[in-house]
């Protein structure tokens, strides 16, 4: 296996961007650190260079869901601003609506969209991260986009 330093060189920036996409800019660094520490801890379990990218995104997905859930409980007791909306507003004004809809999609559609658009992965890679077939990954992505279009109208 390559030195872990090179793993960070190669995949670090994409993972950081993905974390920022999933949990917002304020929590992105925490998410990144948690992801990379977990990855380093279990690095000996990765047998194949080619599997590293998907494995990192899998961990980052898990960590970002954990962070999202724990802050959802803290930030939004009954009635208050949805934590997704509050963090989105700071990053992409006017786009917060889309992501709050994404976050409420069925899990598989939500993850497929995050991995495609915030992770930059292709359908095959999305499938590997999610443990489903490439066509199932494609289907979940398209179903999710269909829902977004129908539920939210125009985005400009």
């Amino acid at each position, binding site marked *: 296996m*390559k030195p872990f330093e090179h793993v960070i060189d190669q995949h670090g*920036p994409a993972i950081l961007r993905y974390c920022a996409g999933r949990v917002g800019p304020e929590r992105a660094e925490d998410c990144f650190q948690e992801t990379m520490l977990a990855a380093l801890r279990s*690095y000996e379990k990765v047998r194949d260079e080619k599997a590293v990218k998907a494995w990192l995104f899998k961990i980052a997905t898990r960590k970002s869901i954990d962070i999202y859930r724990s802050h959802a409980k803290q930030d939004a007791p009954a009635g208050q601003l949805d934590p997704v909306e509050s963090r989105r507003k700071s990053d992409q004004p006017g786009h917060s609506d889309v992501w709050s809809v994404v976050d409420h999609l069925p899990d598989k559609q939500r993850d497929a969209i995050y991995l495609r658009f915030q992770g930059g992965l292709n359908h095959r890679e999305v499938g590997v991260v999610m443990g489903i077939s490439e066509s199932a990954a494609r289907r979940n992505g398209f179903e999710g986009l269909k829902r977004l279009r129908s539920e939210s109208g125009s985005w400009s």
Partner: protein
Amino acid sequence: MSKTADKQLESVLSPGKGATPADWARIRAEFASKARKRGLVDISYEIHDSPFGPLLIGATTQGLVRVGLSTETQEAVLNDLAMRISPKILSGSRPQIKLARKQLDQYFSGKRKEFKLDLDWQLTHGFRRQVLDVTDAIPYGETRSYREVATQAGSPKAVRAAGSALAHNPLPIVVPCHRVLKTDGHVGNYLGGTPMKEQLLEMERGTA
């Protein structure tokens, strides 16, 4: 649904800007520091500027494990360490590295004649280890021949093997393989190239 609406949707979904270079450097350093504190890093390394180019200084918790000369690419040195010891390698400092860098600077400026560092010898075994142990004891400013070193290491006839052991010294400069010459007095080979060997010997002769 129209194509423009599709494109709009996709642009809205695309990721924001990445971190600035300064932020990215900070985030990496924080990660390396956290990882070290949690005992997750097997080998730390830093790149040290020297009169002989950048040196890769690598250490485990046991001590200095590798000095990579500028004639070796960083990638090759690190890949070798990943294969032979562990891929849990991150750039960043350790007390052993700070100390090694300080002592190397002192050595290059003629202020230090002996290195006092904890060394991690796990990359060297058997006869090679004996050869390098003997080499380690050669005083500043002096030289020995390959034959003398082979003899002191217990195998007077294994001159070639002694040469090979020296060629595989993972800790050049600190373990002074540059002080070993051919029996006929010629400088002989060196990991960092013959000019570097000659310069090191000349520097030591001048200061001894």
